[in-house]
């Protein structure tokens, strides 16, 4: 493990209690994020991608989190977020690691103006005076492309469009200059044109500040656009990870290649001439996970006795490319 990584997630599992028994929503997840890196966490519903993001910030009080989440703090010391006390973790949240969510409407308070909320955050986290906080908020809103920051400060969230609300959330999240931003599906509720704007601003701000981003999404197009590296999750486990160019050109796990083949691509209907190839079946229920490889009931490369017996290890197929598939060597050989 590299010495300079910003966040090291090691063997993290998250489980919830339910009437039908414990739900192990995330199992044995390990990854790291280097300073200034944009890492995408990709998956469908139930993959555990959002749970992983929330668990990193210790934001799921009802869950049991095990493992180690080691953050290198701004002062150079390391802290394990799992074992940190509530008052210590509050100092990490916002200051060192900030988070933005899918639905900015529910993240903003309807009875206070945007300005009040932004200034409050700046005063709590950075101990600024009201005047300093106001000036900082205006600057933060300008940085995310808010057309009229002064007017925005006076309005309430319901007067803003979804895209404008998300800009406010990003401005607030970035006001205390976190070293890591966790963005949980930040553009999913927005139109494609607004999504493109938000992604562009995130990329621009990332370049200026050098912060790292953990970008949680189900959209493979966005992954290619924003991330350096991607981690693919399925049914609570990491099934593949690697650089974005590796994953998109040489996917090793049948789930990843299946996702890529099932994606309609604009302007390619004519040139490719091939119809999209859907992955058969449906996502497993967290209460009734398949034995062995969690993807085997939907996999075209399934071999009885191999795929349904033991859970395959996440192994390196290449430098910085990991795959969890018992048959990836055979599959790669036949594909050549």
């Amino acid at each position: 493990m590299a010495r300079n990584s910003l966040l090291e997630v090691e063997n993290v599992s998250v489980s919830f209690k339910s009437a039908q028994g414990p739900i192990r929503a995330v199992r044995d997840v390990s990854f790291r994020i280097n300073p200034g890196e944009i890492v995408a966490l990709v998956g469908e519903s139930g993959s555990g991608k959002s749970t992983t993001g929330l668990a990193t910030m210790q934001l799921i009080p009802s869950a049991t989190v095990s493992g180690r989440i080691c953050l290198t703090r701004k002062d150079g010391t390391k802290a394990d977020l799992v074992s940190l006390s509530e008052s210590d973790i509050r100092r990490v949240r916002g200051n060192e690691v900030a988070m933005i969510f899918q639905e900015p409407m529910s993240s903003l308070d309807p009875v206070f103006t945007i300005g009040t909320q932004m200034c409050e955050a700046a005063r709590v986290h950075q101990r600024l005076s009201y005047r300093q906080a106001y000036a900082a908020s205006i600057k933060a809103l300008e940085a995310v492309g808010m057309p009229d920051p002064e007017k925005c400060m006076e309005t309430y969230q319901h007067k803003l469009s979804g895209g404008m609300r998300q800009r406010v959330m990003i401005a607030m999240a970035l006001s205390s200059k976190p070293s890591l931003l966790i963005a949980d599906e930040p553009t999913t509720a927005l139109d494609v044109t607004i999504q493109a704007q938000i992604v562009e601003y995130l990329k621009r701000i990332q370049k200026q500040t050098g912060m790292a981003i953990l970008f949680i999404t189900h959209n493979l197009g966005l992954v290619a656009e924003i991330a350096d590296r991607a981690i693919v999750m399925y049914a609570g486990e990491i099934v593949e990870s690697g650089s974005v160019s590796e994953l998109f050109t040489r996917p090793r796990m049948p789930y990843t290649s299946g996702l890529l083949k099932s994606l309609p691509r604009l302007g390619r209907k004519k040139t490719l001439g091939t119809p999209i190839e859907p992955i058969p079946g449906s996502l497993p229920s967290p209460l009734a996970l398949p034995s062995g490889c969690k993807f085997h009931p939907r996999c075209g490369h399934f071999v009885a006795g191999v795929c349904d017996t033991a859970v395959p290890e996440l192994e390196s197929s290449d430098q910085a490319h990991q795959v969890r598939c018992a048959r990836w060597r055979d599959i790669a050989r036949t594909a050549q």
Partner: protein
Amino acid sequence: MSSEMAPLLQVEGLRKWFDITRGVFGRKVGQVKAVDDVSFTVRSREVLGLAGESGSGKTTIGRSVLRLVEPSAGRVVFDGTDVTSLNTADLRRFRRRMQIIFQDPLAALNPQMTIEEVLSEPLIVQGIGRSDADRRNRAVELLDSVSLSSDYLKRRPGEMSGGQRQRIVIARALAVNPEFIVADEPVSALDVSIQAQIIALLIELKGRLGLSMLFISHDLAAMEYISDRIAVLYLGRVMEIGPSSEVCGNFKHPYTEMLISAVPQPEPGYQRKIFPAGEIPSAASPPSGCVFRTRCSYARPECAQIVPQLRKVAEDHYTACIRDDLSLSRVLL
């Protein structure tokens, strides 16, 4: 698709203006022009895609065609009959030929009903099938057509996955053997690996049953796959309409260019050449002239004066832009 085929559905000058009211007496203070003077046709066995951002009026058009919302003005002619002038009883009879698939399958299904009841209800309403046994056979047939086994008859929506529920919603729409289906964002609420299944299913059903469809979506990539033609909407108006490969690959309207360039491409290293500017204005106070001019990088002073009409740029391909001197960027690879 050749243009000689008689249109199955003809929409002419469709308008839907919602009143904005204020105070206890509902004083009218303005109007939202959700759909403003929209005309198009859907030919027999053809899929027309309606694309646009939220607020473009695409859903309102879909519902107006079925008269699930009453149009303020305009005509909807289905196979020679003016749907807008039908009375309630005739409309109900007509609905046998036109059905709808909704975006959120969980909201579209009654959680208390078994799948057998869900699929039998339209048959009972339309007086199809003489007995419960008849209807059950039809329900099994319908399940089979959406690739679900007859085991599902006794299940309830809550026991199924999102993709399975959407298959049930599609089966229910097919129950009365319609010729025409409005599919309103049928895959938007589904997971990526399930979306492709439903798109493939709709393409298969279209071919096998000879369906015509209005496919409403904000996902242009999925739309290009399923549609024969695409109409691009903005603030309640048609900006461009034409064969899907032309609209997606050889577009003639600046708004189409903006919309297509915004779609994230699953190609590492892909660089966007055009950045979408601004946001869709309120339909309560749309810009004068061309409604898109406030976000358009090619706008000229004349654009504020003239409401551009659709003009022909190629066979079957029309654009509502007064600038005929533009060479729009080929944004795609």
